[in-house]
């Protein structure tokens, strides 16, 4: 295969470069997009087709200890959805938690070429990297759970902020992570140490002498100071609880004018009284996001059908276990995190599930700035990433949306404004919420666009009226300049690379961390940090203070 390729006659959607459906030639050489290629370059004729950058998933759960536990937990989820191999690709199983190979290939079959695993315990980083190595096609990175890290909380309580910053950077380097993840800040210790209780307010002082707000603020400041390409990725307190939109607004206000990313914001946009059915507060949340350019969010859309709840928010999973009454996994990680897993099913006739579905759509449809309101289902929590084409159709096709609205709980629709929203997304806007927006929010300068110098991660769809069908089956998927899918078939395999950051830190911090380790961890300090042998192909994304 020649390294040079020219795609001609296709309609290009490249919002980052202000190209909205223009017929334009795209040239590729050595895995990058270039100005021009030699005459003898391979030509793809994209007549009647739509060309977009490869999709970027900013928030999903696809690899690591909790994902693998969820795989092991659900043979019934795999059995009905097999993923046969081809002479060039490995086999696997699907369902809401596919095997690693199926995960990579299935992202590719939707035209996605980058995905970020959103919650990994530091001690589970090595496991995650091993799974990434077996997750083909896509580039990937992960966010490391540091919010409930007891050592970091100790530094915070003692106001040793310089050491706190150094330790955050050390942990990022030790795990090869992309940014910091906070989940239900302050909620871990009550869960593990105080008989499965939880924090309920962002300003509630825990027995450890910290409030969730103090934890959130400390990480936002630290990451801002160190110039990570993506700010702290925050799963707010009170996920799923009626009235939680106040907590979400307060969390965003805590950031001031510093950057913050609010994960699966749909689950945090509920009004009403605690313990009673919620109502939509999508308008209030969207209004704040629209008016604060420092905030990005992903929606965490709920899609009806089977899902798997997997979260570091262990108290939340326990609440849901009370509803589902089925099997449940709790997994505590020493000094670092909690975790809960359970199979789940979103059903149209249930008020809560319909409202969640409707609020997600409201957030998309109300947002004035699609660049900062990114498409996700919090895979597999709100539903599998395999639902993305259907979600795109819901956004692009008003008639389809209204048909779907006939099948859901009508009472829930009365407590939101979905019926009044007539907006239909354009292809350009879809390219923003699935490509350009997430790439920009992640600080990935070579992703999410088709300008010269960008990674040659490209998807070519047949243009169709049925947008679900269109986004379900790209005719070509090109990853790093290689044609992975040609004429709808896998023609080769590719492993993709790890995206991570290496913020600078003072080695002396290890002397501060090590004694804590020796007392409270069960593995040796020198066996904790992940070495470079776990990287396979990788790319270091620059930070404000990159280390060598």
């Amino acid at each position, binding site marked *: *295969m020649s390294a040079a390729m020219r795609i001609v006659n296709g309609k290009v959607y490249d919002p980052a470069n202000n190209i909205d459906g223009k017929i334009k030639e795209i040239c590729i050489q050595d895995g990058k997009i270039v100005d021009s290629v030699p005459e003898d370059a391979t030509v793809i004729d994209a007549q009647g087709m739509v060309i977009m950058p490869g999709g970027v998933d900013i928030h999903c759960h696809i*690899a690591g*200890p909790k994902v*693998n536990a969820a795989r*092991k*937990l659900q*043979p019934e989820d*795999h*059995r009905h959805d*097999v*993923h*046969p*191999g081809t*002479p*060039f*690709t*490995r*086999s*696997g*199983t699907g369902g809401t*938690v*596919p*095997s*690693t190979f*199926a995960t990579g290939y299935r992202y590719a079959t939707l035209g996605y070429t980058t995905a970020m695993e959103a919650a990994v315990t530091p*001690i*589970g980083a*090595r*496991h995650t990297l*091993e*799974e990434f*190595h*077996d997750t*083909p096609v896509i580039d990937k990175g992960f966010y490391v759970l540091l919010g409930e890290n*007891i050592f970091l909380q100790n530094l915070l309580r003692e106001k040793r902020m310089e050491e706190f910053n150094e330790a955050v950077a050390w942990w990022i380097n030790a795990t090869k992570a992309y940014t910091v993840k906070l989940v239900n800040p302050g909620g871990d210790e009550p869960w*593990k*140490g105080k*008989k*499965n209780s939880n924090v309920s307010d962002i300003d509630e002082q825990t027995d450890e002498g910290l409030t969730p707000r103090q934890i959130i603020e400390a990480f936002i400041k630290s990451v801002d100071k160190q110039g990570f390409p993506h700010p702290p990725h925050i799963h707010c307190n009170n996920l799923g609880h009626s009235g939680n939109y106040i907590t979400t607004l307060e969390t965003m206000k805590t950031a001031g004018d510093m950057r913050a990313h609010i994960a699966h914001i749909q689950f945090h946009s509920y009004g009403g009284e605690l313990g009673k059915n919620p109502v939509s507060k999508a308008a209030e949340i969207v209004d704040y996001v629209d008016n604060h350019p420092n905030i990005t969010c992903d929606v965490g859309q709920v899609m009806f059908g089977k899902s798997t709840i997997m979260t570091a928010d262990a108290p939340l999973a326990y609440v849901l276990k009370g509803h589902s009454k089925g*099997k*449940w*996994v*709790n*997994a*505590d*990680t*020493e*000094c670092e995190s909690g975790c809960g*897993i359970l199979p789940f099913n979103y059903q149209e006739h249930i008020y809560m599930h319909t409202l969640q579905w409707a609020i997600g759509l409201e957030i998309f449809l109300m947002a004035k700035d699609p660049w900062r309101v990114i498409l996700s289902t919090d895979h597999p929590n709100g539903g599998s990433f395999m639902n993305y084409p259907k979600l795109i159709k819901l956004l692009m096709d008003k008639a389809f949306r209204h048909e779907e609205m006939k099948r859901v709980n009508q009472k829930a629709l009365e407590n939101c404004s979905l019926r009044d929203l007539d907006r239909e997304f354009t292809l350009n806007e879809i390219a923003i919420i699935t490509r350009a927006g997430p790439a920009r929010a992640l600080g990935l300068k070579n992703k999410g666009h088709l300008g010269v110098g960008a990674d040659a991660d490209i998807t070519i769809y047949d243009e169709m009226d049925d947008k679900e069908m269109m986004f379900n089956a790209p005719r070509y998927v090109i990853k790093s300049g290689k044609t992975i899918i040609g004429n709808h078939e896998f*023609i*080769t395999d590719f492993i993709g690379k790890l995206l991570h950051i290496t913020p600078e830190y003072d080695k002396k911090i290890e002397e501060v961390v090590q004694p804590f380790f020796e*007392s409270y*961890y*069960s*593995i*040796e300090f*020198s*066996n904790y940090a992940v070495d470079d*042998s776990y990287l*396979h192909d990788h790319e270091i994304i620059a930070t404000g203070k990159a280390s060598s």
Partner: protein
Amino acid sequence: MTENTKIIENATCTFCGCVCDDMILTVDLDEKKIIKSKNACVLGRAWFAEHTIEEDAPAAMIDGKEVSIEEAIEEAAQTLTKAKFPITYGLSDTTCEAQRQAVAITDRIKGNIDTTTSVCHGPSGLAFQGVGESTSTLGEVKNRADLVIYWGGNPAESHPRHFGRYAVTPKGMFTPRGKKDRTVVLVDVRKTKSSPVADILIRPKPGKDFEVLWALRALVKGKKLSDDIEERTGVPLAVLQDLSDRMKNCRFGVLFFGMGLTMTRGRHFNSGALLALATDLNEFTHFVAKPVRGHGNVTGADNVVSWQTGYPFGVNFSRGYPRFNPGEFTTVDTLANAHADAAMIIASDPASNFPKKAIQHLKSIPIVVLDTKCTETSKDAHVAFRTSTYGINTTGTVYRMDDVPITLRPAFESPFPDDETILKGINKRVNELMLAKHYASGASGEVKVAAPV
């Protein structure tokens, strides 16, 4: 002892599922021997001390005759691709890197893969699929557990450092006085060397674990038990009531369980009852459970097979995708039912410990063996590779019984290649052979080996 020694700090012992990573090994580089293993338990010391390399042994043999490694790889690939029902088995005493290659090969040849899990904690895996599990890493037990219950195991002899390093005596964040801050309960049908560690010793009648666990579930939920519970189980009601109260009132409780539970009458029902009990207790306090796994990297095998196929063991690829059916695709069954027509055995010796009928069939089919030493299985092998020992000669990843991954620090080099290297070679050749078949059938496509390096 010579002067030529080297010290390896923070090395890992892979003898059992504790995977202690605080070994300080002194290596005699001339003799190629570990002469001291500080911090190791009695089993670990033997594991390190008895590790010698038979330099003269052939690295590869076909039908008992020494051949080059390349010839053996070719023959192994030919044998496996020609078979209609090739099985892969073992895997719990090698690295995850080697396990990944083994699954890849089995996928390519549309074979059957299974690990030693199917003959040890397989029932716990099935119970996990049924009811889930509340669990934790061992460091949480050290830091927090004030009630520690062992059920159906004898860690003093099987996992000697489990008490001292993780669960009974160590001082943790919320257990600053070590054992004084904990109550230790041992439930076992007999007295063992583990018994002295227990504050409370409970001895049910043999085969009555399920009944005892179910009775405890009832008590925890406030139900009344029938008066004949002692007669049925051998445990007085007052003892059960006391245990139930302790479990509900502790701050952080843990139930460790062993093969005395999983491999006796009831099997996965027993494991399921125990996991359900731990789950129930979370209504009252924080409670976790954890199987005490045996082999050094059996947990890694479960993880690797799960992430590549979706299922932990007993997986068949004959239809071109993974299917899971313990009882059919587990190795004892594929052999005893005479389904398998070739076998690749990695780091395991089924010919010495499987049921007779399974061994008989195993001996009638061509076997490819990778092992660090001569075994009953390798004696009958069609193709036999001698490989280096993980954790002693080879680096790589192993998973502790609580799913914590650790990187190995080898002590000294072996003249023999490691499992991963051999399996990579077989994988590459198998790919070529399968692609040749694909092209011979008139198909097209770009030749590109999928297996990641």
